[in-house]
């Protein structure tokens, strides 16, 4: 067997495994976000009939009959519920209209002629039929638009949603701001700390390195729990500050932005320190003395020699911290208040709270896309491995 074939065979199990359980789920998430499937599934006959209605005239009798047949059919409760939710997000009122109509139709005899407008006057309002038509395409950008607080009007023009429902952009902005804040904090602490570590030798250097690696090896959940305990009103931090007389009443350090920033900076700091340290120890030791010998003042040597050489590490550390911070869920969920939740918590809410996978997928795509781009930039720029051992 050729060496090439053997290598290929060795790689195959992982390719298949990740293809099946990593790339495919991501693909399905994206597909679910753009499929207009829920309403089509629940109203198959209406879907066919509505395609030939151009939306300008009142809905023809054939279309009304198709909808009546679909509503009388034995659609699973869950599928019906999904469709109602999707429709209601397009046109408020469907949440009461559809179940009421379905109930009336089932109570009436099969052979009775039915006029939908007499069952509920809202059926004579064209807006409901237009919303129904809009919700029927095979593919839709409704979820993607809703993820950034936009929607299509009846004339298919894109407009902002009502201010009361426009929350996603604010949360995306907040996610971005928190990630930037954490990156800056990590850089402000991590750069001097990495420089200090690189300037030491022997056991002192090892001690500082171990202090960086130990948290990295410790469970994220344990670290977050520890901050929760330390930062609470009766926690060690407030106790100490009170004991030394700096404060009279406890500072509120937890369930707000302060708590999120402290905990996230702690969790992500090692990811900043290690790449900077790696780029610093690659610098020849005699470079700074050489700069001094050539007459550079210490600050000049720092600015023109050390800082530029630390730059690649600082850049990859910042990219890494920012990229990881964007997707954070656990730490803000535990240490933040309602106003500190990031995009991940909204995605989790849609997926596990309301089973609205279309919206969860659309928001997920808006998180996945920047992360992937940042990862590509990161792997181009950086020679430091993602995992430290």
């Amino acid at each position, binding site marked *: 067997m050729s060496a*090439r074939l053997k*290598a*290929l065979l*060795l*790689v*195959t*199990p*992982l*390719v298949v*495994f*990740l293809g099946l*359980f*990593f790339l495919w*789920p*991501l693909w*399905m*998430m994206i597909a679910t976000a753009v499929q207009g499937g829920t309403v089509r599934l629940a109203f198959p006959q209406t879907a066919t009939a509505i395609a030939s209605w151009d939306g300008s005239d009142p809905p023809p009798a054939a279309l009304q009959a198709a909808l009546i047949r679909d509503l009388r059919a034995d659609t699973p409760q869950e599928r019906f519920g999904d469709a109602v939710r999707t429709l209601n997000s397009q046109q408020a009122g469907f949440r009461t209209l559809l179940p009421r109509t379905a109930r009336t139709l089932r109570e009436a005899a099969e052979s009775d002629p039915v006029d939908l407008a007499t069952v509920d006057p809202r059926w004579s309002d064209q807006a409901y039929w237009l919303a129904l038509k809009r919700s029927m395409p095979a593919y839709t950008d409704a979820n993607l638009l809703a993820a950034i607080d936009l929607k299509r009007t009846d004339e298919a023009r894109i407009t902002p949603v009502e201010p009361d429902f426009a929350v996603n952009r604010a949360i995306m902005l907040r996610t971005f701001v928190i990630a930037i804040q954490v990156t800056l904090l990590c850089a402000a*602490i991590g750069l001097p700390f990495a420089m*200090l570590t690189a300037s030491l030798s022997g056991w002192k250097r090892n001690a*500082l390195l171990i*202090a*960086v690696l130990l*948290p990295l*090896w*410790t*469970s994220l*959940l*344990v*670290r977050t729990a*520890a*901050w*929760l*305990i*330390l930062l*609470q009103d*009766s926690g*060690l931090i407030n*106790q100490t500050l009170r004991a030394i007389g700096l404060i009279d009443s406890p500072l509120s350090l937890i369930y707000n932005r302060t708590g999120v920033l402290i905990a996230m900076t*702690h969790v992500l700091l090692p990811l900043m320190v290690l790449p900077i340290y790696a780029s610093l120890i690659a610098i020849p030791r005699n470079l700074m003395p050489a700069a001094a010998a050539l007459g550079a003042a*210490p600050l000049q040597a720092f600015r023109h020699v050390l800082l530029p050489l630390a730059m690649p590490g600082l850049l990859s550390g910042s990219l890494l911290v920012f*990229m990881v911070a964007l*997707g954070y*869920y*656990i730490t803000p969920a*535990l240490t933040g208040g309602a106003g500190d939740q990031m995009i*991940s918590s909204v*995605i*989790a809410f849609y*997926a*596990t709270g309301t089973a609205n996978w279309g919206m969860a997928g659309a928001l*997920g795509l808006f*998180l996945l896309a920047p*992360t*992937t781009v940042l*990862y590509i930039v990161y*792997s181009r720029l950086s020679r430091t*491995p*993602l*995992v430290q*051992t």
Partner: protein
Amino acid sequence: MSSASLRPGGAAFNALRLGFGTLVVGFLLLPLVAILPLAFTDSVFLVYPISGPSMRWFGVLAESQAWTRAIVNSLIIGTGATIVATVIGTLAAMGLRRELVPFSGLLRSIFLLPMVVPAVVLGVGMQILYARMGLASSYLGVIIAHAVLCVPFVLVNVASSLASMDPALERAAASLGASPVEVFRNVTLPLAMPGILTGAVFAFATSLDEVVITLFVAGPNQTTLARQMFSSLRENISPAIAAAAFIIMILTFVLLLAVKGASLIGALRKKREISGL
């Protein structure tokens, strides 16, 4: 303080360095150190000073069905995910070793992606996929999901131990008449073992710590220790959490130290053998 002493090498500058270093080391280590003793408190509150010492909260964990079940689940799922990830991750690392596979670089980047993709995003995808495949709320489903997250750690560790291996050793074994299988069993595998074991420990620790994907794919029967801890942290903070945190930390550190220690002892023994020749 004169400005001259703030220069590198000056007394004030050195004091500043010492102060800053101590502060950051304190910031990094304080949470880890502070949570451990609280596992042994006698009080119902997670506060200092500790009244105790007592094993009271470990008793609470041992008596609570939810917690014992969560610990058992974590061990089952962690072991399963570690085995899956270690086997296929090690094979792939060996396959990628000499860059004989087309697009080796691209494949390596894709293999590391599970570490980068936000857990919530992967969770949504897995939830949709599992609903279709019928894997939702099953042990197998959770094990597979965890294995996806664990694979990069195995891959990186095995790859780095393979990279530091002298290929001449394998060539020498082959030229002395060893079959490819014998070379693999007697030369490659033992030399890669420290990397494989370290990767396995990181894989186990990753699974032990995983919350987000578990929230999406596990049913109530597959609640893990981390997930149980996450939901108790959201409800009420009791010292039972510190006891659970203690278990997680000790498990991870003991395994890590065991592996690092074993590879250190192995290296020392090899050195002695060589010098004894």
